[in-house]
C-alpha cells in the first residue's frame, strides 16, 4: 500500500458518499457521479428532517445511488455486507468523506484498504465549506476511544511515555482537554492551514492555552489541501517517536487528517493507535455550503 503523489479523479467504478443535512453533502456527487457505476451513500438516523437532508436524499436516489441510513455500526455493517463479496472487482474507488463522522470514514476506508484487491486505487475526497463559526456550546470530553476497534494499537512498552500527536480543530480547548486528560509525556500539535483564514485564526485562538504550554519545536503546520506532504510529515514524526515513546494519534480538526491517520494506522497496523474523542454532544444542525474546492488523495493498495 502506498499513497500516490498524483491524485486520480476519474474513471471510478465504485463511489461511496455521505448523506447529511448540509448542502455540501451532494457537492462531490455532482462532479464525480456516474449512474452506471455502483454507488452508495451513508445516511444517519438523526437530524433527518433538518436543513437539506431530505433534498439531498432525493438527489442521491434520483441518480441511482443506494442509500443506507441508520446509526453508525449498522450502516457500516450493511455497507460491508453489500460490498465484501465482490470488493476485489473494483479497481478505482471514490470515498467522499465530507459529511462522514470520523468513525464512519475510518471504518469504511479501513475496510477498503484491508479487503480491496492489490493495485486498487482509492481516492479520498473532501469538500471544504465556507467558514462557519465554531459551536458556542462546551464540548467536554466524555469518552476517549479508538477511531475504530481496529486501531486500538499495541500496548507497547509501558516504561516509555505516551507521545500524543494531535490535529487541532477550532472547538475551544478540546485538544487541551485531551492533553490534560491523558497527561501525556509530550504533545505534538498539527495546526491546519487553509484558504479560509478565519478558520485558521479560530484554531489558534481556541487552542491558545495549549499552544502556550507546548514547546515550539513540537508545533507543526500542515496545509489541508496538500494531503500528500501532510502524510509524509505525520508518518515520519510517528516513526521517529516510536524509538523512545508510545505514539498515539488523535486527529481532531479537519477530516482529511483523520483519513490520513487511518492510512498510516493501516500501514503500521497493528502497532499504531489512532483514537478519537467524543463529547457525546448533540451538535445543533448548521448549514455548511461547499466553497467549491476539493481536497483529495489517492492510495494504491
Amino acid at each position, binding site marked *: 500500500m502506498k499513497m500516490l503523489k498524483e491524485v486520480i479523479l476519474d474513471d471510478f467504478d465504485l463511489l461511496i458518499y455521505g448523506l447529511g443535512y448540509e448542502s455540501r453533502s451532494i457537492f462531490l456527487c455532482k462532479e464525480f457521479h456516474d449512474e452506471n457505476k455502483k454507488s452508495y451513500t451513508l445516511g444517519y438516523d438523526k437530524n433527518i428532517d433538518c436543513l437539506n437532508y431530505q433534498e439531498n436524499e432525493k438527489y442521491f436516489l434520483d441518480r441511482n445511488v443506494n442509500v443506507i441510513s*441508520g446509526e453508525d455500526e449498522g450502516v457500516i455493517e450493511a455497507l460491508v455486507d453489500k460490498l465484501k463479496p465482490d470488493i476485489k472487482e473494483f479497481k478505482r474507488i471514490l470515498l467522499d468523506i465530507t459529511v462522514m463522522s470520523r468513525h464512519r470514514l475510518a471504518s469504511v476506508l479501513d475496510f477498503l484498504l484491508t479487503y480491496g484487491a492489490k493495485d486498487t486505487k482509492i481516492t479520498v475526497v473532501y469538500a471544504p465549506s465556507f467558514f462557519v463559526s465554531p459551536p458556542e456550546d462546551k464540548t467536554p470530553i466524555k469518552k476517549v476511544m479508538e477511531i475504530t476497534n481496529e486501531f486500538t494499537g499495541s500496548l507497547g512498552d509501558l516504561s516509555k511515555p505516551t507521545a500524543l500527536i494531535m490535529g487541532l480543530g477550532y472547538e475551544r480547548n478540546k485538544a487541551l482537554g485531551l492533553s490534560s486528560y491523558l497527561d501525556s509525556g509530550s504533545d505534538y500539535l498539527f495546526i491546519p492551514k487553509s484558504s479560509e483564514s478565519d478558520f485558521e485564526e479560530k484554531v489558534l485562538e481556541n487552542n491558545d492555552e495549549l499552544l502556550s504550554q507546548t514547546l515550539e519545536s513540537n508545533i507543526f503546520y500542515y496545509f489541508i489541501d496538500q494531503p500528500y506532504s501532510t502524510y509524509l510529515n505525520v508518518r515520519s514524526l510517528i516513526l521517529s517517536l516510536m524509538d523512545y515513546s508510545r505514539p498515539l494519534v488523535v486527529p481532531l480538526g479537519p477530516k482529511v487528517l483523520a483519513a490520513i491517520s487511518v492510512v498510516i494506522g493501516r500501514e503500521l497496523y497493528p502497532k499504531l493507535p489512532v483514537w478519537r474523542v467524543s463529547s457525546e454532544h448533540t451538535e445543533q444542525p448548521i448549514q455548511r455550503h461547499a466553497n467549491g474546492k476539493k481536497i483529495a488523495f489517492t492510495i494504491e493498495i
Partner: protein
Amino acid sequence: MLNKNQNIHRAFNARTISLKELCDGFIISDSFTKLASPNNSILIGPRGSGKTTLMRMLQAEALCQWDSLDSDYYRNKVGFTGVFIPTDRFWKEQYDSLKKAEFLGPAEENVLKAYFNYHVIERLCSTLEFRVNKTKKSNSKYRLVELEKEDEIELVQELSSLWGVNPRINSIRSLESSLSNKKQSISNYISELKIDSNNNDTPNVKNGELVSILDPSVRIINSYLNEKNEKWCFLFDELELAPEEVIQPLVNAMRGGPEDIILKLSLSPYHKNVVITNSPESSMGEQDLSLIRLTGIKEKEGIEFSKKLCGGVFESSGYDNNVESYFEKPEKMDVVKEFKELSDKDSTFKRYLDQNLIEIDKISSYTDKDRNPTIRKIKFIAQLRNYYLKVGRKRPPSLYVGFENLCKSVEYNPRMLISLMNMLILSLKNGKSISISDQISALRRSFETQKSLLNTIAIKGDFKEICTIYDLVEFVGNKFKENIVGDSFQAEPKGSLIFKKENDKELIEIIGYALNSGALVLDDSAANAYQNIIEINRSRCRLNYLFSHEFKLLLTKQREIEISKIFELKRNVVKVNKSNTSSKLIMKSNKVKTLSKNDQMDLKL
C-alpha cells in the same frame, strides 16, 4: 518537590524530565521525609501536587545521583531499595479496551493480565542491575552490592525460572532484556489476535497476584546478594492507572504483606473501586501504613516549601535575592477605615456592629478579652464586602496579593507555583518589583487556565446546567459568594461542603472527580483522615483557593453546608429514557423513488 530549574513548558510533567533534572531541582518537604520512612504508605494528592516527583526521588537511581547538602542524610536514612513503577493513562485506556475485546477468551485474557506483572518485574530487575553494575561508577556508591560472576549466573537462572523467561546469557542485563522482550511478545500476541484469533503462538507467562510473585523474587535476590532482610520498596506511581485487578490486592497487601517488601502507592483522592477502610478485613491503622496527603497543607509548611521552590525558579532566571523581595507588598489593612466605609453604605453591617457592641472609634482600645476576637473574625469579610460594594477605582483587596497569599491561592501546588512564578518573572524587568496589578493578572491567568481545563472534564449525571467540573465550581462558588457579598452581612459565611450519610452515588462520583482534578480540596479537619481517601461520606471539602479571587471568597476555612442541600435544586426531574432511541436501519434502493414499507429493510442491529 518539583524541579525548580524547569522552563514553563516542561514543568508540567514530572514523569518525563530526566533523572538529573529531577535531582538537581529537588526540594525536600515534610511529605518527602514522611514518605522516606520504611513503612507502607499511601500518598494522596490531585494532579500537579508532586506525587510523581516524590516517588521518583525515592528510587535507588535517583538517591544515588542526587547531589545536595541533604542528599547524604537521606541516603543514610532511606533503609530500602526503591523500585519506581510508572503507569500511564493512555496505556490504561488501551488495556481496558483490549480486555473487553471480543477476540479475547479467558486464556488470552490471562496473557494480557500478565503484562503488568512483567512490567513490575522488569523494573525490579532494572533496579537490581543498577545496584550490581551501575552504582559502582557513581560518587555516592549508594546501595552498591558486589556479586561474583558465578553467583550472578545462578541468580539469573533462578529468577528466569521463576519468571518464565529465557535470557540469552546468564547476566542480569540479559535478564532485563528478556523481560522487556516478554512484555513486547505479550503486546504483539494480543495485537495479532485481531488478525488471527486462532493464533496458537501463546507466550508462556507468569500469572498470579503480583505480591505473590514479588515475594519469592525478593527472597531469591536477597539470598544471592547476601542481604538478609533487605527491604525492597515498590513505588507505584498513580496506581489508579494500573489494571483494576491489581489495585485492590496491592492495597490489601499493605496489611500483613511479605516482610521484605514495602509498598508505597500514590493515588488520586478518589477512586471508586478501591476500598481501603470500609470493610473489617481491610481496616487499617497507623501501624499498618502512613497516609500522606499533599493537599490542605499547613500554612507554615506550605510557605517554607514555596519559598524554596519559587526561590529556585527566580534564581534560574538570574534573580538571586530573597524571592519575597521581588513582590510588591499589599498595604496593611486599616480596620477602622474599612469598618467605617462599610457601615456607611451597608446597614446590615452597621446593625451587626451595634448588636455586638462594637464602636468603630473605640476599636484600637479593645482587647482580646472583649471585642478583638470578633473583630479578627469579621475583618477580612468586611474588607471583601467593602471592596466589592465600592464604586469606582479601587486597589485589589490585600488578602489575595503578596508572595505568601499568592502561594496560598494556588494551594502550594508545585506545578501551579512554577507556572505562576514563570508568569510573574516576565513582569520583573530591570530588577523592579512585581506590582500588585501584575500579581492579580498572573493569578487571574492561572485561574483562566484552570477554568479551561476543568471545562473539558465532563460530568455524568442529570444535573441542570452542570455538565463540566467547572460548572460545578461556578455553581458552588456563586452559592458561597452570596454569603460574603449578598444582601446582608454574615459574620460566619458558609464556605465548605460536608457530606452526611450521602447516598447519592452520582453526586459522590462527581465530587470525587472534582477532588481528583484539584477543583475541590479535602479539608484538614475532617473526622478521620483514612475515610477521606475513598469514603467521601462524612468528609468535608472546600473550593480550591485559586477560585477565591474570582468568587470573592476568603482564603480561610469557613462554616460548612450539607452538600445534598445545595444540590437538591439542581437535579433534573425528568430522566431521559435512553432505550427509546431508534436503532433501525433503513436501506433505500435507487429504483424506488418514494418510501414505502416494501422499500425499507429493517434490520435488527
